């Protein structure tokens, strides 16, 4: 292993240099460096990170059929997002506009508009595709905001306790008690947000509160764990305990809830666009649904039903993908399963071998 001088900003410094004012240097003892004065390289750190946070979880995740299906569906949406993004820049799959094709075409009649057109001649597939990037941004922004604020408030309240806990808990109680939909409707009407990131945040404006309370209770149990106690005894800073000891152990819970929050953003945004509360100039599947219902009369007769089905399938697909991913991630963070699938537990492996050999031996 290559040995590298420590930079002053490194948190795992093997020793710290102190000047006494006379210019002479003295070395002070550091608990962390007593066992080793060898520093790991960035490459090794990255490799460790990859191993711990990407490879192993990925292996476990990929072993679960639900995650595979969920990821495959999400890949389709990401591809749609890329097509729409490229389309906007390169004219690859153009944005929907009125009169881009013949009016009222049924699906599968022409390759120019494979899923048909509206009564204004807009390509229905283009409408679905070009709604995707904004939806993905909105979903990510909403999910990050909701889980981020929840983690921040939940860990702070749970770990610090006392007056900090009381203050943060009271704040989240207030946020939780405000009815979500009317609040969002009022804010949407006042601010008329058009930026998908803002819309995502707006939709989860008080969604974090319930999640924050759940995280707080998780933290209350984690803070009594021996390794956290040990860190406290050694005088490790609160910030470091939270970021290194507490939050990583919350990640399973957080990631599963991230997927749920994202699903909530999908449904909430579609609902608000459908109701005409969010501004109508942004492409969205909810707007497409609303247009199909109000302008094409998709529920009167069957002639325009396809205009309703395309956005419905889009919404169902992304919601299903998020549900499957959430369930798959739940498995990733189950330590027993994870260790077994990552091939680190001899006992489990031997149990499996025994079981399989028994099966093989059966007549």
């Amino acid at each position: 292993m290559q040995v590298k001088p420590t930079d002053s900003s490194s948190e795992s410094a093997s020793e710290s240099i102190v000047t006494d004012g006379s210019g002479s240097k003295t070395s002070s003892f550091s608990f962390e460096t007593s066992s080793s004065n060898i520093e790991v390289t960035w490459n090794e750190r990255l490799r460790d990170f990859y191993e711990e946070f990407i490879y192993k979880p990925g292996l476990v995740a990929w072993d679960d059929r639900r995650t595979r299906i969920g990821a495959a569906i999400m890949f389709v949406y990401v591809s749609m997002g890329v097509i729409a993004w490229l389309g906007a820049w390169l004219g690859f799959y153009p944005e929907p506009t009125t009169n881009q094709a013949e009016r009222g075409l049924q699906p599968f009649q022409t390759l120019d508009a494979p899923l048909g057109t509206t009564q204004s001649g807009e390509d229905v597939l283009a409408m679905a595709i070009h709604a995707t990037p904004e939806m993905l941004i909105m979903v990510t922004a909403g999910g990050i905001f909701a889980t981020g604020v929840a983690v921040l408030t939940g860990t702070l309240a749970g770990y610090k306790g006392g007056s900090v806990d009381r203050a943060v808990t009271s704040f989240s109680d207030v946020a939780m008690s405000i009815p979500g939909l009317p609040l969002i409707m009022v804010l949407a009407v006042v601010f008329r947000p058009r930026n998908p990131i803002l819309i995502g945040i707006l939709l989860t404006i008080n969604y974090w509160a319930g999640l924050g309370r759940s995280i707080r209770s998780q933290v209350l149990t984690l803070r009594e764990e021996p390794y956290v106690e040990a860190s406290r005894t050694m005088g490790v800073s609160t910030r470091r305990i939270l970021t290194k000891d507490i939050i990583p152990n919350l990640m399973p819970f957080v990631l599963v809830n991230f997927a749920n929050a994202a699903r909530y953003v999908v449904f909430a945004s579609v609902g608000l666009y459908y109701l005409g509360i969010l501004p109508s100039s942004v492409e969205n599947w909810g707007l497409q649904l609303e247009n199909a219902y109000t302008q094409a009369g998709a529920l009167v007769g069957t002639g325009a039903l396809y205009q309703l089905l395309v956005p419905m399938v889009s919404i169902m697909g992304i919601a299903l993908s998020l549900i499957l991913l959430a369930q798959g991630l739940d498995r990733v963070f189950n330590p027993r399963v994870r260790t077994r699938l990552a091939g680190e537990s001899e006992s489990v492996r031997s149990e499996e071998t025994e079981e399989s050999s028994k099966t093989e031996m059966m007549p």
Partner: protein
Amino acid sequence: MVEKATSHRDILNRRQFVGLVGVSGAAALAGCTFGNNGGDGGGGENGRHTSYTNIIPKNMQWNPSNPSKLAEISGQVLFDAFAKYNFATSEFKPYAISDWEYGGNTFKMTIRDGLTWANGDDVTSADVATQLRIGLHTGETYADYTDSIETPDDKTVVMKFNSTINKKIVQFQILSGRFVRQKKSVFGEYLEKIKKNKKEGIRELQEFAWQEPIASGPFEFDSAGQQQLLLTLRDDHPDSKKINFGEYVFVYKDGNEAVQQALQNQTIDSAFSLFMPTRIVEELPDSVKQIQLPGNWGYGLVPNHSHRHAGDRAVRQAIQYVINRKQVMNNVSADSKQVPEIPIGIASSNQKQWLGDAMSSFETYGVDSSQTKKAAAVLKEAGYSKQGGTWTDKDGTAVKLPILVPSDWTDWNTATQTIVDQLTSFGFEATVDGRSFGNLQGNIWPNGDYAISAGGWLDGAPQGAYPYFSLHHQLVKNFRGFTYNYPAADQSRGGSRNDVTVPSRTGSGTMTVNPSKRLNEMATNTEEAKIKEIVVEQAWVTNQDLPMIPVLEKLEQTFLTAGDKWDIPKPDADVAQVRWANTWLPRMGEMKYTGN
């Protein structure tokens, strides 16, 4: 409240009732339900016409001076029209006012014999005069020229004017769209209050919600619940004998689509006005018939003349050049819309009649094409330039044109989206901005808080058929209170009735006119040549200055059920060419119940 009339039927319908109490019971029920005229003898559910309303019946009120929750269509069944304008004959058919006499500066009206209120009182000249006198204080247009309203006897009302008034204007303003509905015994006290303290009296009048109206029409108020309004046939109306069904019901339907579905499923028998695209009309049952009428109004754009770009005539002309009106019409519904041949303040079907040979000198701005070259030329001449595909003004500011539209007005949204696409491909930064109608009408339009808004560019039927009203609507005072800040407009619309300067119609130089003064001259003139001269001149002003941007004109769609349930005339029959056939035909004996 649950509707009384329906609730008992939910438990016990008429046939069950007959079975239980026998013939005498049935006779009692028929007598009770239909009054002395007896209906069809079928009674109950069989003798009922069901239509729709878009206001929750329990919240409705029938005071026409109070715009809040004012019942529109049921009011046309409960109250009698002064006269009915027929679009096929272009004439007024006498009704509650059986006769009228125009005398230049007087207008004498005679009330129909035998007309009574639902409480048994006669309809008298005092009732009609009370209503007209209230109008003098609440901004009715005839207030501008009416000196007095007199009642020489119980059946005669005479309006005296301060000068000679154009006969057509008097007829349209007094007779059209006016109903016998403000009974003196109910509204007289408000008139007295207004006389004592105008501001306070009008406030009280406009806050008065008349929720149990006294009818003057053939049906009277019975009950109003969350879902339906029940009206029952009177036995003392002059036309009751022509009506063979006992109940007229309005069920609450929220939105166009709900009504379309109800017609398709035949849960309602009629719809007075509805936007229905061709595809859905074609899918309706054969028994549902469509009657089309000129709307004399329709979708247009109302620019805010104080806006940096929409207020610039060059930008307005460029917009009008870029809009392909026929494409917009085809996207919305070619069957229920038409496009004006030239964009002016005169309804499409009247343009040739009024402009004659002068029509060729007017700018069409392209009926079925986007005339982008002409639009670009106009903009360049005014100092605009195109940078990076976007038009910018002299200061380098991009021309941003957000277009407000009521978010739940289906056809208007389609039209707006099409126009936005046309403007965007030309190089304007146009966007659709959908808001609730209530928000637009309550705050945004009156406050002038917009760049461009979708709005009606004509005055509406039937008076929209006469150029005075449509020109007045564009140049001086529009309805729905758009504060569009046009200099020639009324103060209440953000203007100051100023002069307007536009290019001369003769081809060189400019002409300066005062639209408000000229239209006033038209209103007080009886000389046809003079009237025509003013119409052509003011139409030219609207064509050049574009105070509003005309796009589409509506064909009203009324739906009636025929088949084995109702006997109705052919949709194009003269008698059906009125607003609205489902409330007028029963009075004429032309909508008979034939069901079992």
